């Protein structure tokens, strides 16, 4: 270690502190906190609990727990990174971080941690609704596996958000992210199962990373007949690598 470098707070402490404040400030931003926390729950209650209907071989409330879980965790990932980075590049906040005594990695860490924190809250809220009011029976190990898949599965969406945030500036990112988030959610069968859609759209679902994550989540709770673990994991990993690389290229350019 260079003798000229002063010692100071540890890297771990720094990252955690950064993440804590990031979480606090997003929680205080109604435009972020309300849609990301409330929408998945409201939709779940509406489509899963209030509207009647039997889905043959599928258990509706368990099925929608998985798909709204996906919808719930990818929102903060896309918005936290995409909109957050775009706004903060624009406002000069990122510049100030870059001249501060903190590694820029701590900034990105705080965004990932915030996405995971919000994601976990959404999953817990959905689970309370599903188990408490939807009659879903799920043992603790399965629940942990489902939650784990959902949280790890946010990575490719963090990467997509990062790329959009590096590309578009300021408020435009809100529009771009919404244009990705909402259509992808619907077309991946996160709101209503895909068998309710025309066959052509069902076939197309394979192009959406959210569909692959949904297949994994459904597989965890026995609601997918043909979840191909390796294929879906592979697609999600490839998506992460692709968008992380694109974002890194773009950010280095600047």
């Amino acid at each position, binding site marked *: 270690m*260079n003798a000229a470098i002063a010692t*100071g707070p540890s890297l771990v402490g720094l990252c955690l*502190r950064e993440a804590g404040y990031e979480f606090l*400030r997003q929680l*205080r931003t109604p435009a972020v906190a309300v849609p990301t926390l409330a929408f998945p729950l409201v939709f779940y209650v509406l489509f899963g609990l209030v509207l009647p209907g039997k889905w043959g071989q599928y258990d509706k409330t368990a099925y929608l727990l998985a798909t709204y879980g996906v919808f719930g965790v990818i929102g903060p990932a896309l918005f936290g990174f995409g909109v957050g980075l775009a706004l903060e590049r624009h406002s*000069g906040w990122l*510049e*100030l971080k870059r001249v501060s*005594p903190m590694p820029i990695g701590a900034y990105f860490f705080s965004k990932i941690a915030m996405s995971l924190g919000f994601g976990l809250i959404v999953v817990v809220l959905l689970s309370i609704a599903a188990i408490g009011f939807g009659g879903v029976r799920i043992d603790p190990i399965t629940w942990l596996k489902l939650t784990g898949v959902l949280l790890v599965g946010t990575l490719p969406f963090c990467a997509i958000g990062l790329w959009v945030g590096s590309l578009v500036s300021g408020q435009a990112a809100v529009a771009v992210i919404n244009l990705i988030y909402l259509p992808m959610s619907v077309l991946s069968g996160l709101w209503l199962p895909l068998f309710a859609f025309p066959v052509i759209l069902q076939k197309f679902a394979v192009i959406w990373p959210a569909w692959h994550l949904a297949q994994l989540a459904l597989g965890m709770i026995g609601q997918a007949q043909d979840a191909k673990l390796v294929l879906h994991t592979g697609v999600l990993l490839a998506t992460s690598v692709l968008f992380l690389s694109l974002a890194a290229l773009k950010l280095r350019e600047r």
Partner: protein
Amino acid sequence: MGYASIAELRGASKRYGKHIALQPTDLSIRAGEVLALLGPNGAGKTTVLGLLTGRLSADAGSARLFGADPRDWRARRRIGVMLQDGRLPETLRVSEHIALYAGYYPKPRPLEETLELAGLTDIAQRRYEQLSGGQQRRVQFALAICGRAPLLFVDEPTVGLDVEARRNFWQVLGQLRAEGSSIVLTTHYLEEADALADRIVLLAGGRIFAEDTPAGIKARASGKRLRCRTRLSAAMLRGWPEVGKVHVEGERTEICSHAPEVLLRRLLAADADLVDLEVLPLSLEEAFLTLTATSASKEAA
């Protein structure tokens, strides 16, 4: 050597595509001094700051902070920075912003002291979005000083502040200096550099033209602008040592000079028919140009 260099550029240069932001430049910052980087927009002030604070990488040459690379975040534990514009997240309170930042440093200032110095004590619990422009600027300043770093960089600190706020700010900088901090500030007000700095570095067009005490710089920049109608050609005038820039527009000739009295005597002697004479002060921009011309002719000589 009577001083220690705590930060420096060695032959550092930076370009963006074809635009040269900074020519190869040497600069050293001494312990305990207040250094003003003075120059018009686009002079390279912010580039110098960017290189010294690790935000930019030099194309050639190097930047050092206390002997380390400023791009290493640990090296930046010894500096505090206030950027020209950098809005902070809206929903955090003033005290939270400062607590977050102070946490980056090994021996930060107590929160109360930072609030006091930056004049934020009464609004410590407000959210950033509820503050006026001047108050927001003070929070940004608080972030720069909360770590008790021995070297401060402040980029155009008083732009947008009213006269009273500017005086207050100058006073606080004086206080920090008395604590032993070194301060590098950029400004395009000669008045500000004069009021605060021990040393002024004059930048224009991406290079350093002069480096001197405020008194020295003012003496050098204290030229005048002469306007008249004369039959003497611009080429001939340019040959005179006391002439800086010459500009001919129609029948009018405009001459910048760092020694206007000498020039006037020679001018009136050389052209008996000279009319419409005016003697005007130099603007700071013109002072730069005069210095530019002087240093260019010295280089040519």
